[in-house]
């Protein structure tokens, strides 16, 4: 089994209100200098060798992300996972 990472982020033109709330909270813990935070989702999938890249992009585009509002990146890691 190999580990695949899918990162899903709101598209740049989508107002990320959750990220904005985090940005504002940084001031409350005494941190200055962070201009912007954007909040997304990180998925880790353990897949066997039969799952090809096309299938991974289908998983990301049809389920993990909503292409109307989100972009995604699929990345195979070098990590192997014991089934």
């Amino acid at each position, binding site marked *: 089994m190999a580990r695949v990472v899918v990162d899903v982020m*709101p598209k740049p*033109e*989508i*107002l990320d*209100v*959750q990220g904005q*709330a985090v940005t504002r909270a940084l001031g409350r813990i005494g941190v200055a200098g962070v201009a912007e935070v954007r909040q997304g989702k990180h998925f880790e999938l353990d897949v066997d060798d039969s799952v090809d890249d096309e299938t991974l992009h289908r998983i990301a585009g049809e*389920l*993990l992300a*909503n292409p*109307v*509002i989100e972009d995604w990146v699929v990345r195979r890691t070098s990590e192997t996972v014991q089934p």
Partner: protein
Amino acid sequence: MRIGVITFPGTLDDVDAIRAVRYAGAEPVALWHGDHDLAGVDAVVVPGGFSYGDYLRAGAIASLAPIMTEVKAAAAGGMPVLGICNGFQILCEAGLLPGALVRNAGLHFLCRDQRLRVESTDTAWTGAATAGQEIVVPLKSGEGRFVADAETVARLEGEGRVVFRYLGGNPNGALADIAGVASADGRVVGLMPHPEHAIDPLTGPSDDGLVLFTSVLGAAVGS
């Protein structure tokens, strides 16, 4: 006329939707998310709630439920489908309506009586309303902000597919104050506020919501 109301795990407003269907003079038919069968209904309501806990994104898992395969096929054949709140989110996730619903601009869950303007009476669910009619129905949602790319919004506006617009201030930051939209053929309609909670002044702010359910009586399948 038989109108199906789908229940997913986490649906909250199916009972009120069934009651609204009955008030309008139609026969409500309870449908289950795991079914592959629409039980011969003439129209479908996808009610509000938190289907499958709204895990992943609001409506995303429900849009892939077995019964949604049947709903998509029926909608393609012209069956009227109404999505309310979580149902609107489900129809957008299923690709039956354009755009998406994201977190309210103010981050707060909103619960209030909301004024709306009926912008289009050229749909299966607003045919009995008058154009420009103002209605008051409850709004209760945390992810009700309608978004779409500029091209999609321009197309919706140009084709008269913005069905409901917020009045008296935009509650959630929705683009162009959009509260509800329709499919290109006007058979599928989705909106964030809850007409099914406003069908009797005894239990709601008005009976303004009933007009959606009476409208569909005059919009038979395939007409």
